């Protein structure tokens, strides 16, 4: 499904490069998490970091997600730029109230900024089962005061992580495990950021809009190519930032195409697609020439066994079916 070119930077390397460059440039940046030191992290994102930056800027912590995030918040308020690594995004639930009650509400309540990044390797397709495959974005999407980014390419992975580290707010950085070594980009040699809050039109089209993010972007691009052969010209909006949502880009696309599919890997009910549907129904109703369609995982935990997980995850064929349905309106 995804084509990779040799001698380019993988999604995982892009994350690693962003961390390395920010740590090199800014003494305030330090990282903490489980097994990130000599071991280099469960996915090897921080391999060699402790050798380069020492034990106090690359901190192996006890297994205590709430404590780690809390410590990140305290350090952030003292002028540091902590990057906390969740070993798997699933474990972020252990740190829930530090994120939603402390980090998210601090600035609103008493004006104390929390420039904290939480890296969270998320998503399915890697046979991780119910506790190593989750998409936790909807929990935090509902929380004012947090920013959430979910890059789909190495370019965005690097640019968004740099932007997150430089941001004054708590940012949840969702890095998709399935993409780690499967997508590659030729990255610019110079420093760049991808601004938080800006979606990207990944593919321009006239007949319908597909709004998605993360690993699903690649599914969407594959579907768009097939649909082009059938004379259906699909536009693809890659959200890149989930919170705050780039409503303008979403609405501009839908006003142009009049038809929309929202695709995400997270469970359907109460997901980000539900919010986007509501925004479009409220603000673009007059432009719509068909129902707003959502493609998402069913409302079950992520199952382990290959036939079950395959059934669970959205597929190219789902997008094709939805697009063909909309084309008949």
């Amino acid at each position, binding site marked *: 499904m995804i084509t990779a070119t040799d001698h380019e930077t993988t999604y995982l390397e892009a994350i690693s490069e962003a961390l390395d460059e920010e740590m090199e440039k800014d003494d305030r940046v330090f990282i903490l998490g489980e097994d990130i030191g000599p071991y280099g992290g469960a996915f090897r994102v921080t391999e060699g970091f402790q050798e380069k930056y020492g034990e*106090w800027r690359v901190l192996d912590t006890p297994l205590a997600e709430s404590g*780690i995030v809390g410590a990140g918040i*305290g350090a952030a308020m003292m002028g540091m730029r902590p990057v906390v690594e969740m070993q798997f995004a699933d474990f972020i639930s252990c740190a829930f109230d530090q994120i939603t009650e402390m980090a998210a509400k601090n600035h609103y309540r008493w004006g104390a900024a929390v420039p904290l990044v939480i890296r969270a390797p998320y998503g399915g397709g890697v046979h991780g089962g119910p506790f190593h495959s989750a998409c936790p974005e909807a929990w935090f999407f509902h929380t004012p005061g947090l920013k959430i980014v979910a890059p789909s390419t190495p370019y965005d992975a690097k640019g968004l992580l740099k932007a997150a580290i430089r941001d004054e707010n708590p940012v949840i950085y969702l890095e998709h495990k399935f993409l780690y070594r499967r997508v590659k980009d030729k990255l610019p040699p110079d420093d760049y950021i991808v601004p938080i809050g800006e979606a990207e039109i990944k593919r321009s089209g006239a007949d319908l809009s597909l709004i998605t993010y993360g690993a699903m972007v690649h599914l969407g691009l594959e579907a768009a190519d097939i649909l082009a052969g059938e004379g259906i010209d699909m536009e693809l909006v890659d959200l890149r930032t989930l919170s*705050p949502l780039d409503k303008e880009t979403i609405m501009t696309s839908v006003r142009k195409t009049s038809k929309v599919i929202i695709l995400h890997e997270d469970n359907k009910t109460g997901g980000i697609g539900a919010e986007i549907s509501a925004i479009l129904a409220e603000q673009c109703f007059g432009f719509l020439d068909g129902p707003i369609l959502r493609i998402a995982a069913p409302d079950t935990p992520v199952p382990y066994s290959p036939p079950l997980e395959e059934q669970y995850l959205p597929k190219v064929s789902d997008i094709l079916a939805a697009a063909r349905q909309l084309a008949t309106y």
Partner: protein
Amino acid sequence: MELTRPELLQLYYYLRLTRALEDRVTALYRQGRIVGGAYTSHGMEAISVGYALALEPDDIIAPYHRDMGAFLVRGMTPGEILAQYLGKRTGPTKGKDGNVHLGDLSKGIFAFVSHLADNLPVAVGAALSFKIRGESRVVVTNTGDGGSSRGDFHEALNLAAVRKLPVVFFCNNNQYAYSTPLRLQMAVPDVVERAKAYGMPGEIVDGNDVAKVYQVAQSAIYRARSGEGPTFIECKTMRMHGHSEHDAARYVPRELLDEWKKKDPILKAEQLLTQLGYAGQSDFQEIEERVEKEIDAAIEFAENSPLPDPSEVYDGVYANPRVEVHS
């Protein structure tokens, strides 16, 4: 070593100021002039007064809701604090939060959240930043016997001990977590047992003796500043009011309160000041009158302060917003 007269008088002054302020908070609450809840440190003032006066100006506190004395010692004014209670714009949170959810980074005060013990890992993080930067600053944090059952309490103590961070953990053991007595909260006789399990020294102190709290805090803070790591200090005390001012606390035996009334921290401080020949009844009277005047002025300030404008509800969700957050 005995405390000097100025030290002890300063401790006494803040005990009186805290008591006077919180007595007024209770009165305002009963008159229905506080729209939300009211949480006080009646009978427990010595703990936060004691630890806060043992700190240097650029140290940090991460207090909880029985620490009014610490807010005052760190320079938050009674006027600002009452403004917060009345939901006024001149309070430290400009009406965004209520009661003792007070924070001000310029005074080294972290605002706590109602989720008890959440302030402990945050305190540890501040201490971690001092260690990383090689600064000789210290953090003092506090929670109750109730908070010591939460996971964040344990995660924080463990992390601080493993990394020998410059943080001092206080525990206000006032024998009740809301209505739940100690025997239903833990199977150990003292909270300090929990700290010892993480490999840090722990001490038990009479939480109603401000001089002792101050001295124990001084040594623990000195220890932290010298790079020897965290200390845990359990202050035995009694919550003399309800969990909050709406709570009559009928679940607390009357005799227990009568017994602790005799050990009131202000009374104890007066006994010590008298015994050392540092001060007498007229001095106490004078300080009482002085703090009453301060509180009168504070009430006037708070009551005359403006309420926030409704439009301010949208402000401050993000620091430096780049994207409009409300439509």
